[in-house]
């Protein structure tokens, strides 16, 4: 598996990596991804291509480095990055600004198409914007100031602000459905917000009882909207059913330091990916059909099975996700390390089709084009 990983050193610490979406109708492979840097004197957002131009050498498996298409200065650290559509990305900045950049693919240039400076702020200081999620044209951002702000990409003004949405820092946000979002914060809580309600308080709060372990990332199951995965400071992977009670359905020991991102595979959600400050990138696989012989379940990634433990789960519904039905004793959950030994943090990852991209504090971008999913 590791043979398929290409490292490219890029002279900037990478905070975010995102694939440009591909249209659902075609069976295209992703070709372009975007990265954001942090902690540099001048930070950048960049667009990269992994397609080998000209088509020569494609057949013999030759795969070159990602090639830089274009880059643009970014004021402050890029704390989050999301594609709004094929041409536009939204960034969250440590200066509190939210910016929409347009990638002009014919000229390979980047321009700013919308910019909200100091969207997140304190009365006399900037507050970093920590997370952004979009469902074009709507953009939702969260920040250290505990605010949730809703923008529209085509409107200059702010649509809505939820003041004091959180007394702690909100670290990440995701959509549960078009009118409902979920945030995670630095005291281990998940908060559900119904955007149809005008109230400034969450419709539901879930938390790990008493632990207060900060949560850093969240992702929603692509098909089952009530299932979300979170990762936190202790490196644990939690899978939650937001309909069921207010504590996680399963807890899995994953990393030895902060988990920065968690992603379900968008089309094959039995696969999940996590990355961490401990310098590792994990591929998790669970199988739905327990009748299947074990050799058919995990045949493709039998190397380097790492620690994995799953708390006993309690559901007995007939149709529940494999993630909520975890049972490692039958070998239904496998984890595989996807990077060669590495010491510096893997800050971000994105997976689309068979392609995975991640970025590190070691100033490297890794691309794997043959993820076994």
């Amino acid at each position, binding site marked *: 598996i590791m043979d398929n990983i290409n490292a490219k*050193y890029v002279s900037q610490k990478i905070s975010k990596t995102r694939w440009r979406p591909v249209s659902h109708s075609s069976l295209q492979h992703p070709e372009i991804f975007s990265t954001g840097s942090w902690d540099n004197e001048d930070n950048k957002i960049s667009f990269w291509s992994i397609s080998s131009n000209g088509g020569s050498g494609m057949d013999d498996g030759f795969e070159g480095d990602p090639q830089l298409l274009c880059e643009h200065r970014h004021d402050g650290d890029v704390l989050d990055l999301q594609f709004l559509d094929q041409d536009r990305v939204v960034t969250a900045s440590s200066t509190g600004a939210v910016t929409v950049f347009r990638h002009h693919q014919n000229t390979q240039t980047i321009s700013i198409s919308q910019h909200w400076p100091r969207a997140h702020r304190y009365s006399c200081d900037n507050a970093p914007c920590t997370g952004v999620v979009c469902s074009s044209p709507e953009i939702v951002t969260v920040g250290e100031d505990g605010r949730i702000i809703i923008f529209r990409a085509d409107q200059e003004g702010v649509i809505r602000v939820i003041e004091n949405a959180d007394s702690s820092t909100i670290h990440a946000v995701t959509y549960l459905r078009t009118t409902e979002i979920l945030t995670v914060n630095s005291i281990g809580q998940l908060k559900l917000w119904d955007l149809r309600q005008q109230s400034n308080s969450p419709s539901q709060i879930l938390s790990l009882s008493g632990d207060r372990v900060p949560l850093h990332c969240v992702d929603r199951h692509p098909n089952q909207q009530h299932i979300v995965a979170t990762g936190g400071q202790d490196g644990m992977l939690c899978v939650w059913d937001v309909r069921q009670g207010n504590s996680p359905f399963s807890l899995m020991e994953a990393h030895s330091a902060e988990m920065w991102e968690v992603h379900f595979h968008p089309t094959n959600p039995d696969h999940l990916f996590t990355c961490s400050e401990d310098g590792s990138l994990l591929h998790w696989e669970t199988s739905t059909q327990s009748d299947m012989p074990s050799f058919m379940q995990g045949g493709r990634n039998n190397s380097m099975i790492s620690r994995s433990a799953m708390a006993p789960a309690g559901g007995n519904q007939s149709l529940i996700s494999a993630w909520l039905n975890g049972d490692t004793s039958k070998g239904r959950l496998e984890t595989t390390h996807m990077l060669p030994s590495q010491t510096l943090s893997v800050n971000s990852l994105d997976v689309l089709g068979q392609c995975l991209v991640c970025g590190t504090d070691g100033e490297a971008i890794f691309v794997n084009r043959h993820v076994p999913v």
Partner: protein
Amino acid sequence: MEEVDVEPPVTNIPAAAAGKHLGFAWGPGDILVYETLYKASGAKGSGSPFIHEVRKDEDIYSPILRKLFNESHHIFVGLQTIREDLPSKNKKPQFVSISKNYRSVIRACMEELQQVAVSTQDAEVATQYGDQVSILLAIELIWNLCEVLFIDAAPAGSLLLHLLDWVRLHKADVDEKARDVLQSESPAEHESYWDVVLGYVLQGRLEEARQMLVKQASLHPAARNMFKLMDTLLSKMPFYNPSGTQTLTEFDVKWRHWHEEVDRCLQDNSFASNQHLEAICKILVGDEDTLLEHKDLLSTWYHFLVTRLLFCHPTVKPTELHYYAQSCLTMFLDSRSAPEPLDSILLAAFEFDIHQVIKDCSIALNNWWFVAHLTDLLDHCKLLQSHNLHFGSNLREFLLLEYASGLFTHHSLWQLAVDYFDHCPEFGRVYLELQIERVPLDTERKALKVLRICEQRQMSEQVRSICKIMAMRALRNNRLGSALSWSIRAKDAAFATLISERFLQDYCAKGTFSDLDLIDNLGPAMLLSDRLTFLGKYREFHKLYGEKRFREAAKLLLSLMTAKIAPRSFWMTLLTDALPLLEQKEVIFSADQTHELMFCLEELTSSLNTAPPGTDKPMQEEDIEVTKVELLRLALARNLAMAIVKEGTVEA
């Protein structure tokens, strides 16, 4: 005072006018220089308002060299994990392979710099990158030689083969020329043809030389035999095969035999009719004058050295190298030109004076990267044991600390430095402790990364300090929840108390709690400070009350006072909170509990009365206080009566 090795270089501060006095302050990787006013007292005038930053290690700021730092960091960390207890026989191949990894990173960097230098439009940038390329070239050349001599430590026989590889790798222009020649219409008549043939011979690439000669031979059918003879000589030259069965002595005999044969041909004037072949023959026999006639093809004294060894002393022992190296240097350089720093460094390496190599490199090169990594590797090979510095701990650690300190001054590369400090057993931790606290923390995410570094190393002092900075910042921005979280993480009881007070003040002022999501979720963290415990418990009381669990609420409220959890200043508020419970139709406080409440009230009022009346409180406020106490007394008395009746009834 100790003697200096070289005159220190002068750095001019451009903005400082001549004749001004400068002051300076040391930094870990740079110096701050400022103009001072040095005048007789009373004299007026203003100095320059600028502070200049003088950097020692400019290379850290090169975007391409950053790749070198990042990639070599990875190799460095890998090297530190090689187990100490492995037998050295097993470790040597690992060390050689690590050395090669370092060199390949240097080469990759060099190639990229070269490309940029060629493609850029900016002449200044091109020069700058060109300079960096030549520095990296020198670094790689020295490293490679150190690898051959010290790390691989090849014995006689193999030694020469390694040195040949070394020269071939760093003198690759013969290949370029060969390409030009072969691509031309008539290679044998190309002006560089003989240069290429001689170049190959000088590097011991005899097979390639023979192939080239074939082209010439076909042009001179009359001299066929002469070319045939040369071809035979070249093909018969023995090379030592370290993996073969032949002993070094056997090889030596064979080589001497061949050497005599070449010498005979020379005496016979076999090649007298062709000056080029004659020259080749003289080279093969190791004729020094002929070799020196081809200085331009050799271009360096160390190429001359290796060629001379190849044709005169192929079984040279490592210990004999220094003698030949010194004499080749003297023979090759004109008496006029003094040796360059690179020459002295290579000469020191041939003399196996590792410390001189490192010292000279430290002086000659503008970065610490090379000496730090090379010294570390040599130290792992146990080549530096005997040497101790009269400052710091040892050479390896000293250089690593210098390099890492430089990295730490960089706004982004500081993260790499942590692993270097980790592997400096004596002073690494102190350095890290001093530096890590000074990393600017712009975001919580960065603070978390810095904290992780400190927590992994049990640096509790730094953890506290970082959390404190973050808590203070949150407090300044009126983010009480975040501030409390940070002080809980730092287990900073005093600060948690301070923030709890702010929460309680807010409550007293507004009548509602802010940040309920946080206070309701305190859990065991509540126990960090008494005031925080009180805050959590008091909020719990409100929750119980809200849920109409009056009895539990009443019990909790009372215990807050009797167990001295509540600060005295808050008792009146708590007693006032008891009022609605006392007014309930149902009896909530038992007779005993009511007694205790009364006791609390009396204790409070007696302590209030001891204060001189009306000192600072306005009359109106005092009136309210008095009314409150009266109301409480009445309610307590009524409740006591009801409780006694009720308790009596039940018992009866």
